[in-house]
């Protein structure tokens, strides 16, 4: 059964909660309460918002390019959702078995910006167009460091398949067909001679298997913020100058779909970050001697309990990253366009190239 069947209902639910959490978080950071009126602690606020949005008239500006304007939210939504299809959920519940998994995900997600530019152009509004142009410049630039970071992970893991990557980052590695004889060593240095294959937990996560990937994770997080158009990189929709950026002219349900896709993309990027760096669906607790914390907290692969616990760990980590993204939004000011480009091309890209080089060396340490 494909994981998309899980994600399809999960994402509206998650978006519903995420919007609420983001507001509350913003409130706490600003030292205020956030929504309090609808329901206890304002918990039903999002539902009220959704009801309002659905009732609203679907306004298409008279001078807009109707075809582009109407199809754009669809393309954005579909592009983001297709990305979920390759993500694994647990040891027994892998995504579509695509050998080029992570590469496919990157390609499909980059389709998202086609929708953005369609929306921006089709709205016939200069704010929308500026927003869309910024989005293109931003996403095309930040795909470079993102790609380099993912490449370095792929070099360490020697696979593009996300499920295989997941298995590598835990004590169940030898259960995966094709990985039976692989061993994990502490910090990925075989010469140290500390075999942690059966220990699992945080010690086998990619950021520990090859500690240089810790830097990679930071790069990935920054680049993923830019890919999701989240603050401090939310230039395509910067409210203070562009009204709403490419989504200025959208109202009602279409706007809701765009927002849903945006939150979906945040989750997708966070899930990808977890799978690539933070041990995927593996429990963070290691087996210490007789205290088999890892085994106790992950169940047996393939069983019902195993699936449930895998999903639990995966989603907990991913949602933690999502809240980090939200946090970043409220504590950092927005970058200027030139600062954004400088950061992308002069900092992240060189670091990414360095990372690829070091990861190659580290991979050699892992086998020699």
């Amino acid at each position, binding site marked *: 059964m494909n994981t998309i069947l899980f994600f399809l209902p999960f994402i509206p639910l998650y978006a519903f909660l995420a919007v609420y959490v983001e507001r509350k978080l913003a409130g706490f950071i600003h030292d205020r309460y956030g929504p309090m009126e609808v329901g206890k602690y304002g918990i039903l606020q999002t539902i009220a918002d959704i009801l309002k949005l659905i009732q609203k008239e679907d306004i298409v500006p008279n*001078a*807009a*390019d109707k075809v*582009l304007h109407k199809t754009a939210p669809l393309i954005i939504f579909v592009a983001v959702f297709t990305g979920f299809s390759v993500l694994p959920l647990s040891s027994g519940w892998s995504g579509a078995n*695509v*050998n*080029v998994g992570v*590469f*496919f995900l*990157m*390609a*499909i997600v*980059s*389709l998202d*910006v*086609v929708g953005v*530019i*369609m929306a921006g*152009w089709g*709205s*016939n*509004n*200069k704010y929308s*167009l500026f927003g869309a*142009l910024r989005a*293109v*410049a931003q996403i*095309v630039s930040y*795909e470079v460091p993102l790609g380099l970071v993912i490449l370095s992970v792929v070099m360490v893991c020697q696979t*593009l398949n996300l499920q295989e990557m997941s298995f590598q980052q835990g004590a169940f590695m030898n259960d995966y067909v094709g990985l039976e004889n692989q061993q994990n060593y502490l910090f990925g240095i075989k010469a140290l001679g500390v075999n942690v294959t059966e220990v699992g937990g945080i010690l086998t996560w990619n950021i520990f298997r090859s500690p240089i990937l810790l830097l990679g994770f930071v790069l990935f997080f920054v680049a993923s913020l830019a890919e999701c158009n989240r603050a401090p990189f939310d230039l395509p929709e910067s409210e203070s100058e562009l009204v709403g950026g490419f989504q200025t002219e959208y109202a009602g349900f279409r706007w809701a779909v765009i927002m849903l896709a945006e939150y979906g993309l945040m989750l997708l990027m966070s899930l990808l970050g977890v799978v690539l760096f933070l041990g995927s669906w593996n429990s963070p607790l290691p087996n210490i001697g007789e205290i088999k914390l890892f085994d106790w907290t992950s169940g047996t692969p393939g069983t019902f309990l195993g699936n449930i616990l895998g999903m639990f760990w995966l989603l907990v980590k991913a949602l933690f990253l999502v809240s980090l993204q939200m946090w970043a939004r409220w504590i950092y000011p927005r970058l200027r366009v030139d600062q954004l480009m400088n950061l992308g091309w002069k900092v992240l890209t060189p670091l990414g190239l360095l990372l690829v080089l070091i990861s190659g060396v580290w991979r050699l340490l892992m086998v020699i």
Partner: protein
Amino acid sequence: MEFTNFISYFFIAIVVVASSGIFLTKNVLYAALLLVFSMLGLAGIYVLLNAEFVAVTQIMIYVGGVLVLVVFAIMLAHNYSGKPLVVENNNLKLGLFTVVLFVGVVGYSISGVHYAVQKEQDGANSVEAIGVQLISRNLLSFELIAVFLLVSLVGAIYFASKIRKT
């Protein structure tokens, strides 16, 4: 009809329709966006040919490429007013004649092809095999492309900076 056949005809139809749209539409922006669909269809055909990696690369590269194209189409036209960027179809008759001639000649020619039968190698399309090929047999091509990209970058940057100065 077999299911895979049906799927492949579906993708071929996407490619044909989208590609025809590119030259039938007068709106430059539509043409650029239709190119994306055409490329997606092609990617689908590659997947059916077991060339997943090529398919994904196709999407990856062409989406970025088309986006830049769209941005140029918008910026070069100096038209931020939202009016469609329109090109006229000139030389319609001559164009049709050329198309018919081209299709006729190429169609007639390729009807006489005798394909060389290639033994399908196991896993020849896998990412690993491609990677190994790239750093062994095709290492030279690989490195040359690096030189090629370097030179293109240098040239582009030189001209960009020169134009800005003047």
